[in-house]
């Protein structure tokens, strides 16, 4: 109570802070969010570098160097075929990011419009979409992905599509909640009073105003997608060999856990770091963008 009063009395600095975008947004990110951003940026850089350069060819087997620990030549050691772990890890970042991007894109493109539709068209459309989303959420995402993998055959693409579809309901829910809030504002009434068609209202008014929520959801979903891809690859339903992938590195290292623990430690750390990075970034973005927490700090 006293907080809101003070904000109101504090003048323009309080409730109507300009919608953050671009550089201003970066500056307003809390420290943890900035750490997340740095981690994410680091992974992106590594993936980009690996496109043109890795210490060794990640696919080249050198049998005489197999299962070596950390040495000067191989800072992170080698695997059971004598491949350089650092190089595989770097190349694996590509797959991780690719899966994350495509899965999130699929989820956002499918889920967001459905959520907006549900929020704008109350009645049976809303009922159908929300119940459908609830039903999909009732199944573990991994189970859906395993089913998809079984039907479509194990490949990076089938994993991405399955993860994307499984994450769709999350976007639909967030978009619907945001849409309901936006739809109750007077500017929607004003737009309807100006005879604007529903599609234009959705495009010009609703989407820009719920965009922040979608961005937050995307960064959190990204982390989930990375984890899901690793799990699928671990189960052999994701990226097929020999394409480098963090999840499959874990699986491959499993048999040598006692002899060469570094084979599981490094990819495990990489996955954990990536997930942490995206989660921190997502939380930071939420702090800055989400109207519910905005202005509370």
């Amino acid at each position: 109570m006293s907080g809101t009063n003070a904000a109101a009395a504090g003048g323009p600095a309080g409730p109507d802070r300009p919608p953050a975008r671009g550089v201003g947004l970066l500056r307003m990110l809390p420290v943890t969010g900035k750490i997340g951003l740095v981690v994410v940026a680091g992974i992106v850089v590594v993936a980009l570098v690996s496109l043109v350069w890795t210490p060794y060819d990640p696919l080249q087997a050198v049998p005489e160097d197999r299962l070596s620990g950390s040495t000067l030549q191989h800072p992170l050691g080698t695997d059971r075929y004598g491949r350089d772990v650092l190089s595989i890890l770097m190349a694996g970042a590509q797959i991780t990011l690719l899966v994350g991007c495509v899965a999130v894109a699929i989820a956002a493109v499918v889920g967001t419009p459905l959520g907006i539709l549900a929020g704008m068209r109350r009645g049976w459309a809303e009922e159908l979409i929300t119940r459908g989303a609830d039903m999909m959420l009732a199944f573990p995402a991994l189970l859906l992905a395993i089913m998809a993998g079984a039907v479509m055959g194990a490949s990076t693409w089938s994993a991405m599509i399955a993860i994307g579809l499984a994450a769709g309901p999350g976007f639909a829910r967030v978009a619907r909640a945001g849409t309901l809030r936006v739809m109750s504002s007077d500017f929607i009434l004003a737009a309807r009073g100006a005879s604007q068609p529903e599609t234009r209202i959705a495009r010009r008014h609703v989407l820009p105003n719920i965009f922040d929520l979608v961005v937050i959801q995307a960064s959190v979903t990204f982390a989930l997608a990375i984890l899901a891809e690793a799990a699928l690859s671990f189960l052999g339903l994701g990226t097929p060999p020999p394409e480098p992938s963090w999840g499959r590195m874990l699986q491959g290292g499993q048999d040598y856990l006692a002899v060469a623990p570094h084979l599981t430690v490094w990819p495990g750390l990489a996955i954990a770091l990536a997930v942490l990075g995206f989660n921190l970034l997502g939380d930071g973005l939420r702090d800055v963008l989400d109207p519910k927490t905005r202005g509370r700090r």
Partner: protein
Amino acid sequence: MTATQARSAGASRDDALVTVTGLRVDAGPDRLVHPLDLTIRAGERVGLIGESGSGKTLTALSLIGLLPDELRHGGTVALRDSSDDLLNAPERELCGLRGRRISMVFQEPMTALNPLMQVGKQVSEVLTQHRTLPNRREVRERVLGLLESVRLPDPERLLRAYPHQLSGGQRQRIMLAMAFANDPDLLICDEPTTALDVTVQRQVLDLLDEAVRSRGTSLLFVSHDLAVVARTCDRVLVMQHGRVVESGSVTDVLTAPRHDYTKQLLAASRLEPTAGGARRGAGSPPETGSGAGAGAPTGSEGPAGTERPAGAAELSEAAEPLIRVSGLHRTHRSRRRTVHALKNVDLQVRAGDRIGIVGESGSGKTTLLKILAGLDRPTSGSVSVCGVDVARASKRSMRRLREQLQTVFQDPMGSLDPRMTVREIVEEPLIGHSGARSGRERRELTARSLESVGIPASAAERYPHQFSGGQRQRISIARALVTDPDVLVADEPVSALDVSVQAQVLALLNRLVDERGLTLLMVSHDLAVVRHLCDRIVVMRHGEVVEAGPAERVYGAPEDDYTRALLEATPSLDRVLAEKPSRGGTGDRPPQP
């Protein structure tokens, strides 16, 4: 000690209950409250007047040690017999004072009460907190007594009620009961009646008055409403931009203001009927229902009449009302109950009329506007606007209608899309309409519309948050006028604005309606605002029209009891000042800080 005793003894400075010296509040580099001195004597009632952002709430909060942590403060606040420095007192000490020696009543009674706790428990909590009463039975009896003292009906039952089961007025009474639970020495009220309807506001103020006077409690009353402060307080401080610009006894300050800002506030809160209203009053026929025989109202309109678009002129020449509502019903059905938002409403509006629809919250006035604007559908009855039957209109004729009838909304924050530039907002009604306009044409119309409301066209690429509340409402008006409509519908267009800004926006509306010969339909809960702008008044209650007629008649000789109650409850500065005995005289005025 009674209030009068307290006041007569008040000549000496020693009996100061609260002494504030050099209080200042900073947020980073910004000074929100400039060094301020204030003394509240026992039994004295002090008003703090100012607009939003003037620092009045912060000043009030600092007296009870509730300033937000992120703000820095300086100076001292001393409370007699308790503490020399409330501002820096440890939290434990403050907790012992809050609710016992100082209590506070907030603006919004819904959020100030815990929604998940029975109100009886919330009141008794204040009593048990300070261990002022030994056992539960006594607490219960005391709570019942308190609820009775704030005149809540059936206190036994109310003990177990939850806040959402009470009306706004009842909730504010509960807050008062809580505030008085421990007979505090000082009561701080922060806009306690702003969220209430006028008739309820009057009851709550009466109650507050009585309670404060009978107990001799000192009062700090924060409000933006001069009339409310005038009737409640003895002494008043006027704040602007964090400074006290004027202080003195209520009669002195409000009858002979010295500072320009006070004068401006006074002028703004004394809304006279406009020239437009008087002009129309002379020429137009008196009754609304018998409007059929009333020739051409546009004829008597003076210069504005000649500028009217041909279409509208034809309409009025045919003696056909521009808006005709008859037997209108609107019911909302939910599983549990049926709500009649509108019951059998009849209304006729001729071109050039300025209609004011008055009523308290829930009277159905906004629903009526929404139906007229085609944003809601009637349950039964007929509504025709500009010759279009709104209930059965095709999409195309609806679109044509909306070009002729535009709406200005209440909240200038919510009615402008924060993600759009001002240009995009204002030109929106032009998009997708008949006679598709080119981008350049749209831009020109937008610029012209913005300039007509006093916003430079160069500001068109900025976003709404870069403008003040008054400017935003101007933008909202520009959007409504960009299609060059015949009818302007305004839903509480100034109720979210500060008084001085209100006056400016009302003047703008008045000028635009005059210049463009618009037909105006305005909804408001504020009778002064409606009287200022409108020449015909429609009073609504519980979804029904209880009275309608020319403004002078309705205000001068109201026929309906409800209208009378509404008029009486509306605080009027002049009436309050006339009734106030000029106690104290000029010698009472303390030195300016």
